[in-house]
């Protein structure tokens, strides 16, 4: 017997469907309500504009005492996201608080796309490029977005 889904997860999932966040969607799997398919649109005005990025999100057993586990599935050129799609974001690590939600975390990730921070890199190579030749880095990010993050028809 699997443990019943905590009320908190049920309520969060409900709210994600009834009051969706613009540019973000999160759909739980039918056979595992703790596992979500996530789509995040690149913010307007950023070098990820026009891209639709898919991510996977998993709520561990001790959620919300521990943060959701989340990574990019779509390849992305970003100093705070590594080749495996792992994200360097404070609220997913030390600054996690159980009062945060899936919704707020996804918003933070969207904001991270709008404001890459090469000073706190996860992907050293990209961060180096970002610091030394920002124009070139942004160009690459745009190209990758075109190449990998196109919405499926």
């Amino acid at each position: 017997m699997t443990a019943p889904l905590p009320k908190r997860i049920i309520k969060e999932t409900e709210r994600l469907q009834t009051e969706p966040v613009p540019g973000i969607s999160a759909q739980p799997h039918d056979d595992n309500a703790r596992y979500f398919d996530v789509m995040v649109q690149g913010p307007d005005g950023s070098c990820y504009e026009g891209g639709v990025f898919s991510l996977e999100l998993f709520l561990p057993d001790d959620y919300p005492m521990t943060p959701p586990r989340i990574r990019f599935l779509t390849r992305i050129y970003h100093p705070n996201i590594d080749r495996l799609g792992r994200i360097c974001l404070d609220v997913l690590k030390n600054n996690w608080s159980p009062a945060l939600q899936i919704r707020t975390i996804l918003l933070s990730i969207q904001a991270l796309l709008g404001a890459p921070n090469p000073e706190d890199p996860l992907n050293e190579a990209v961060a180096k490029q970002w610091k030394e030749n920002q124009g070139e880095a942004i160009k690459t990010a745009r190209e990758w977005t075109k190449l990998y993050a196109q919405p499926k028809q």
Partner: protein
Amino acid sequence: MKFGQEYQRVLATQDFPEQWRESAIEYKHLKKCIKKIHQELQSLGLDADTLRQMSEWVGESQAEQNDSKGYYSAATPSLASVPEEFTPQLRVLVDKRTGMPLDATLAPDTKSALQKLAKHEMMSAGRRDYLGASTPSNHAVRKSSVVGDTMEGTIMEAEDARWVQVPLASAKDFFDLLEPKLQDLEILRTAETEKLEEDILDLGDAVENVVQPVREGYEATRKLSYRDLYFWREMFRLYTENPIFYSGTESRRGALTFNEAKSRLQAYDAQLREIGLLEKMKTPQAKRAAQQFLDLNVNILRIMHFQEMNARAMTKILKKFDKRTHLEGQLFLKNLRTKYPALLTNSGKQSQMQSAGGFANSIARDLSAEIATKVLAIVPQPEDWDCPVCYSMAWRPVSLGCCRSVFCIRCIIKLQDEGMKRCPVCNQESVMKADGRNIDFEAMDFLQKYFPMETKKRQKENEKAALVRDYGEGFVKSGCAMQ
């Protein structure tokens, strides 16, 4: 159906009080006025084309008086101030001595008609000066060095030209008829809002009365009314879920139109009937209060209907005014908005969504807020007491003292077990020093009285969780604590 007819029909057939009807905009009459203005303008040789051209002269710069480039304006000269009486005036730049209009493109007939009027105005203005009265306009002399095409680059010096304001008698009639009605409608809005606010307070008392015994604690009367409390909660939950007059969601904020509000109220009523909530209520007081609640909503709907019809009448008639006279009645509207901040017109430009127009909008907004704070708030909903961590009722309630958040005791224990020192909401290091003294007894008392069923259930869950924590999962599963 033409709007004029629809308007008359609604006024005639709806059950509006006589006093309201007297405040209603006289649509038909205003229409006749517009005809007269049209005739007066024609007699001055000002046909639609000429007027349009004159307005174009001034064009965009109307807003900024200082760099007004035009020589003519059909608009009111002082937009920034709110004059007591609005009269659209023809402003004509004329030769200071002869009173001859300076726009060369005007037809000779029009020119001489305007000259006659201008001269008359200049003379009476001169008389007023002589008598020591202040000149009504500060636009009489204007240094205008910018010149349109027709002036062929001639620089006009202020000494040679002056602005003359030519009043239009029939246009004045139009606004003299419209303006007092708006004043009446505003007075009506205030009066009705106040009256309904009284009703809301009364209703609040009645609802409080109905749920009162529950607050008294575990007495004999409790059994009866505690069920009523849950009926009321359901009634209010449905009401908040689908707001009738004013929508506050992200995608749509604003007052709903009368038609929408009406169908929502009907749907709500049908919903209540279907559940049979009113019949289920135990005490006669509870039934009475429920009826009072529904009546209040009907009354709000009625004043919204009346005000909205009037708002539509005003918008339509001003549109007609503009179309027929080109005197820019929209400026009148701008003036009105400054004068009556409660008057929101439904421009329909900012959003695709229709919303209630005129005074109906603020009535819907104000009274919805009033109902929420004075009536709905009397019966708290369980969501208001969710623990920010587990989203279940914060039972037993614990306040950490760092912020106003109330958590359930289980979550605080869990946080301490995990060594998470910071308050999940405000991030202060307040978790570890929490102990029995942090139990919020006031909140506990409140929750027990308003949520007797929920707190009981939570209590059981807590007890089970405590056993799991102290003795492990297996203890609870095999033991009799698991039901």
